[in-house]
């Protein structure tokens, strides 16, 4: 600032010597400069404020809006994705629960069937067992009855061999019968 003022002073002195004054201070030149400054700056302000600057502002504004819109859209899509994911997980949990209950039901049903079947088989086996026991009892008593007969025959045959006398079956049976009171 000081340096420029010094140069300015020097220049003023020089100019004064040359042409009798600094062109900047030549008063008759003021009016045309002021008038044209008013015209040009007025025109510039008018054109810029009405036309040029709104155009620039519009583009910048539009870009900002576009970015904001895109961000909003992305946000919305993210929200939707999260919602879908939550729904999927809920569905999965429900399906899992259903599958569990179905499995449990099936297991219970099968167990009941098995029990029933086992009971039936048991009763059948028991019936057969009883049957068999009965038959065994019958066969046992029949066999015991036959034992007497065989013993009589055997005794008859033995006596015949030993003494040569024929023993009737009746006699042999009698002889073999347990003595009463023994």
């Amino acid at each position, binding site marked *: 600032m000081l340096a420029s003022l010094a140069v300015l002073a020097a*220049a003023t002195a020089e100019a004064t010597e040359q042409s009798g004054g600094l062109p900047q201070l030549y008063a008759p030149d003021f*009016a*045309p400069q002021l008038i*044209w400054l008013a015209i040009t*700056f007025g025109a*510039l302000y008018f054109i810029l404020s009405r036309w040029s600057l709104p155009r620039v502002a519009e583009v910048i504004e*539009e870009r900002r809006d576009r970015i904001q819109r895109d961000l909003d859209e992305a946000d919305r899509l993210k929200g939707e994705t999260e919602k879908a994911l939550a729904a999927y997980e809920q569905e999965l949990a429900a399906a899992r629960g259903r599958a569990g209950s179905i499995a449990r039901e099936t297991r219970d049903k099968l167990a009941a069937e098995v029990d029933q079947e086992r009971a039936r088989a048991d009763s059948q086996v028991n019936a057969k067992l009883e049957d068999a026991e009965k038959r065994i009892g019958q066969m046992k008593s029949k066999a015991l009855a036959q034992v007497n007969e065989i013993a009589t025959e055997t005794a008859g045959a033995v006596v015949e061999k030993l003494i040569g006398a024929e023993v009737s079956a009746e006699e042999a049976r009698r002889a073999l019968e347990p003595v009463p009171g023994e």
Partner: protein
Amino acid sequence: MHQFQIYRLTELEILGFDASFTNASLFMVLAVVLIVGFLALSMTGRSLVPTRIQSVAELSYEFIANMVRENVGQAGMKYFPFVFSLFVFILVLNLIGMIPYTFTVTSHIIVTFALAALVFVVVTGIGFARHGFGYLRLFVPDGVPVWLMPLIVPIELISYLIRPVSLSVRLFANMMAGHTMLKVFAGFVVSLGVFGIAPLLFTIAFTGLEFVVAILQAFIFTVLTCIYLNDAVNMHH
């Protein structure tokens, strides 16, 4: 001082005032055409993904818009077209002046003073429009003892009234001094003969500096306008 001379290209008179189309007028018109043409050309595509030229326009828009928002706040965005017009007008006039054989409009005190006075009038108008006579509280800072008031208030008032002067002289002096200095040293190149290489190198370096000054002064003018606007809009001292 030839480069600062005003030439009348066409003599003209409006309502008795001398409204001749001068070389200064020519470069003012050229600046407006360049600015409007550039903005129109860059925004022809108006594409969502900006082309190079479009992003330059958008960057300058955002640059000034952020400056206004930071210094004045959202309420100041109403005056954004004014601040933007000031910035590009001064910037383009300064940069045109860097081309040899052109004319630097901003090296004339009457032009910079008119711009600064415009800022002053606009800012003061906004201040009174928004706060009424309460705007005068600007000259009475908070937390100052009453007995200091007779001293502080005149100082505040003078510093407020001096704004258009400091604003205009800063721009004008910087532009004029730079151009004069370049001219002086360029003159040395010829007069020193072989040793003229030294001032030649200096002139080249100084030309780079002058570009910085041209951009910086447009920036400073705009930032100060924003700061003054902040006073008027928010009255934060």
